[in-house]
């Protein structure tokens, strides 16, 4: 059973417009959420994160929103740029004890920004 779900495998957006990537989770023990970006033939790179005690975190063009009651988070990119074209993974973190953490990843959403 998938604990982190990204229901849209792909998304196309016009350059300059807003991209909205969605993620749902089922495990209420998750207390930290991250978005990773992955280009072909490269490893995922950390993009932005949010703690469960917040509902919004902004970093430049990227904003992550968290709705705990709905167990839903979203990543907004505005304005979208062609260089943002990549696969975006949502990940959720839970403590495994002794100061260490486990990440559970969604399947990813491929974003294509059209010039």
């Amino acid at each position, binding site marked *: 059973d998938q604990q*982190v779900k*990204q229901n849209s*495998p792909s998304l196309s957006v016009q350059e300059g417009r807003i991209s909205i990537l969605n993620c749902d989770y089922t495990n209420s023990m998750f207390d*930290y959420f*991250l978005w*990773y970006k992955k280009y072909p*033939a*490269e*490893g*995922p*790179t*950390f993009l932005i*994160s949010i*703690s469960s005690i917040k509902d919004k975190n902004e970093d430049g063009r990227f904003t992550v929103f968290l709705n705990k009651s709905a167990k839903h988070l979203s990543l907004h990119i505005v304005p979208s740029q062609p260089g943002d074209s990549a696969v975006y*993974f949502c*990940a959720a*973190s839970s403590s*495994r004890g*002794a*100061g*260490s*953490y*486990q*990440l*559970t*990843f*969604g*399947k*990813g959403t491929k974003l294509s920004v059209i010039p």
Partner: protein
Amino acid sequence: GAGVSQSPSNKVTEKGKDVELRCDPISGHTALYWYRQSLGQGLEFLIYFQGNSAPDKSGLPSDRFSAERTGGSVSTLTIQRTQQEDSAVYLCASTPSGGLAKNIQYFGAGTRLSVL
């Protein structure tokens, strides 16, 4: 090095052969993770090392898979008697110690394994 280094970047092998994949984490990072990404899938957790503690092997799909981490640094993932379903990108990540920074995992570029 500046980032997580994995080798080889690509590996083609015949069914039934053993393979070894190497990960060199960021210097000073205490935790190391192995993941597998099959085509069209998310990242599947395989194994986790934290310092000198016993590794968490709960994600290993079968006893053909094993991993070790020598001296708290370099890790090797070994797949014995490879099968075609083992074909995937194998990713390694490491995390620094301290606070919420532990949650951010830094990934290598991965090893693309193709079993013919």
